[in-house]
């Protein structure tokens, strides 16, 4: 780690103003992505602004046909929340296979989305559920939010405050874990709300989370695993590394998608 200045603002306004003023300021939420990078000296913010004391950024609430989760809500709270389990059980399941207990007790949904790791789990849920990311400045649709590997629509000085998930009638998430890191080698979130079916894929694509439109079309006929038989996304645009080449990743997406639909129907 390099030396840095540390602030712990007590209001959102103060946090935003500190962030605006700092030359290379970074927000700190659960620290589960930022701190390892700083320890390895791969990130070196001059100023760190801890969101831990900002009121009103945590909590899980059902509001009509939506589930609202505060940006500073820890993964473990989402995993165990009766409200989440009732409204979107697939989301609670997703968090239960994210990282390990230590990570889940520190990491936050806001931090995960802002980070937009191409293998992270939450982005798949947001995209498939058609979530809205609410910042201190505006509301951003998930379709517009994720813009590539570690890249989002967030502007300089923008802070995620909460995430609004429309409640689906059916949803399921299946993840094939990266053997070493336990992030998603291929993770597929499927969701159905009324006539709308969305399938989002994380871990596999070389530009981060994406919607698999072909699968969405196929599931419109009948929302069943069989509808996806033989369907595999093109290897074009798939990631390739020592753990999984493009062909294997593409294949896994197909398998995970079928299993996600199965899981969605299980409830």
């Amino acid at each position, binding site marked *: 780690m*390099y030396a840095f200045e540390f602030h712990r603002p007590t209001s959102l306004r103060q946090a935003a103003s500190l962030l605006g003023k700092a030359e290379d300021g970074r927000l700190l939420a659960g620290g589960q992505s930022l701190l390892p990078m700083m320890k390895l000296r791969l990130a070196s913010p001059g100023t760190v602004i801890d969101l831990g004391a900002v009121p009103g950024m945590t909590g899980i609430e059902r509001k009509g046909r939506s589930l609202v989760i505060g940006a500073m809500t820890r993964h473990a709270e989402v995993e165990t929340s009766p409200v989440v389990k009732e409204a979107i059980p697939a989301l609670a399941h997703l968090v239960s296979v994210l990282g390990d207990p230590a990570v889940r007790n520190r990491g936050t949904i806001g931090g995960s989305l802002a980070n937009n790791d191409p293998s992270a789990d939450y982005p798949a849920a947001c995209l498939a559920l058609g979530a809205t990311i609410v910042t201190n400045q505006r509301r951003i649709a998930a379709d517009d939010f994720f813009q590539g590997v570690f890249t989002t629509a967030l502007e300089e000085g923008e802070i995620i405050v909460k995430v609004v998930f429309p409640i689906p009638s059916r949803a399921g998430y299946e993840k094939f874990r990266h*053997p*070493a890191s336990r992030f998603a080698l291929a993770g597929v979130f499927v969701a159905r709300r009324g006539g709308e079916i969305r399938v989002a894929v994380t871990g596999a694509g070389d530009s981060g989370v994406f919607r698999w439109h072909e699968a969405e079309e196929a599931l419109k006929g009948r929302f069943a695993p069989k509808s996806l038989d033989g369907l595999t996304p093109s290897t074009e645009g798939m990631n390739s590394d020592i753990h*999984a080449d493009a062909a294997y990743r593409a294949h896994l997406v197909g398998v995970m998608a079928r299993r996600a639909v199965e899981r969605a129907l299980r409830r």
Partner: protein
Amino acid sequence: MAVTSIGARVVRKEDHRFITGKGQYTDDINRPGQAHAVFVRSPHAAATIRRIDTSAARSMPGVVAILTGEDLAADKIGGLICGWMIHSKDGSPMKAGAHPALAHGKVRYVGDHVAVVIAETVLQAKDAAEAVVVDYAVEKPVVDVASALAKGAPAVHAEAPDNRVFSWHLGDKAATDAAFAKARHVTALDIVNNRLIPNAMEPRAAVGDYDSGNDAFTLYTTSQNPHVARLVLSAFIGVAPEHKLRVIAPDVGGGFGSKIFIYAEETVCVWAAKKVGRPVKWTSDRTEAFLSDAHGRDHVTRAEMALDENGRILALRVNTKANLGAYLSTFASSVPTYLYAPLLSGQYDIPAIYAEVDGVYTHTAPVDAYRGAGRPEATFVVERLVEVAAREIGMDPARFRARNYIRKFPHQTPVIMAYDAGDYDASLKKALELADYKGFGRRKREAARRGKLRGIGFSSYIEACGIAPSAAVGSLGAGVGLWESAEVRVNPIGTVEVLTGSHSHGQGHETTFAQLVSDRLGIPIENVSIVHGDTDKVQMGMGTYGSRSGAVGMSAIAKALDKVIAKGKKVAAHVLEAAEGDIEFKDGKFSVAGTDRSAGFGDIALQAYIAHKFNGQELEPGLKEGAFYDPTNFTFPAGVHICELEVDPQTGDVTIEKWTAVDDFGVIINPLIVEGQVHGGIAQGVGQALHEGAVYDPATGQLVTASYMDYRMPRAEDLPSFVVDTTVTPCPSNPLGIKGCGEAGAIAAPAAVVNALTNAVGHEDVPMPATPQAMWRACRKAAQPLAAE
């Protein structure tokens, strides 16, 4: 308080200290005025150093000194050594290049030590290390044996122009070739034994301390054998005279072999302590551990087995290329030679064996002993060949093994070893029952209905432990003898301290060694303490590796205990006013035979020290005895492991469903500790088979798997609850009958897993590590008739 006998399941005495965070590891040690060392490491696999510019770094805050290879050379500090001489087939000695503790002119792997920055704090040293400017002329690296041996490959060291350190062989080539010529069937396999990174929980660390008043050095270090470290650092590297160098290896959190070796960092810390006039501390971070701890395995092998018409093994022919890395680490040359080829007979009566091994330099981290060291590689070769041979001739693999087992002991193999005792049928029989081998077919069919491929695999391993008779290893090229020492100090009230040359870094010596003393002297285990890991306390010792501490280390203690009892009898004769020959010692009491006169062990200890009852000229006061024990043979633990697993053909995911281990470790001192060793060993073996694999990028020589994000360690959730049992044939080659158990699991497991995987997919083309991707491909190749989900 009761006596604790040999064979009792005693909970580990040392665990209270570890579990409550009171362990004292090297990194817990801080000396007054201490400065911190950070190493500038090579970012290139192969390069010539044109210039090292430290001017900017020197003026950074907190910097005490920046030292390079030139400073080492100016102080006439020697290079690191390899302590085992191997001669090639043609009789020429191995071709070893220099191994300076800080690079001299060239760097040879990513992570090679270029300079050391010493500063007031670790962070200041890191900052300054980043400011050291090194001008490299980058060269093309070779990272695997095939490219290193290719024509025109760049030489890692000028001393070995074709990168061959040695071309060694063992066995009778003519007899082997003749057996192959008349064979009914030949089974041949190409085998890659994957490269592993040890990953002890505690990273390496060192604190060098110099006392100018006495011109004496102390090195605190994470070592499995502090006396050997002192010997090498003084006699060969020359940082300090032996009597002026104290090496302390305090609590050590795992080694698995990687902490046997004498490394650059600890050498530099002792030397620099005098140079800068302050204690110098270095603690490895995890990235440095991946890059610079000695790695393990990394063999490429062609192996063939010849059979007669009755399914009897006639001969074995093995050709292995062993990657030794960029420099020869302390015992690197012995691992793929004398710790490997002599084990190629396995548990089988094989008339002829011939093995050729080339040791090869590459631009990668040095490769040396890692849990099992040569024996896992040998077992993998033998057990894969045996399994495949049985399949090819259509014989049940269990039956095929039994048909070829050695049944008469002692048994001289064609490759050096004389097995002293064993009952291989007993282990196999027990394992088959415990694994319910008969029910496997039913379980396989049931799995198929769930869309899973179920497989079963055996590993009927043998290892040579307790290394080893000094004269024997000396004749094979070892630079040291492999005896062990012990000193038993009985205090005046009868409590006992045992000073041992063995070193515990997870094995539980404080418990098992104390158990032996309690058993022999009839005193409570609480009254015994075990002292190890300090060259100022223990005079000389050879340390812990090769599952030697029970068979050799405890035998030395037993020998010293015999002497204590003999001396106690002399004292008792005076105290009890009887002839020495009439004194008996039993259950902690000295008594006069045929009478009711007796004295307790503690009373006699006190009498030995107050010396009132005897003439001090005729009998020396005190009760303290030492012994050196040199074993008469290797020991030969052996057993049968059976792995049963399922493969998901859709994803390639593997789940181990059942693990059965039946081991013959000879006499067992503490079953609880033995089971722990077996469990850990199996986990590491499964790690090698399914998960772990060090990958270097062939173009750049970068270590791709340099963190846990890419290097996959085995996890608790990967493993079922093991079924662990034993059979016992006492070892005739040491007084306690112990064979050793520390490496068995890691030696047995990889072949059992791969035999099960190949059984599941129905063909032999399964690599290690059998990652999900590899297994998905293997399933596709098998084109099993299982429908897609």
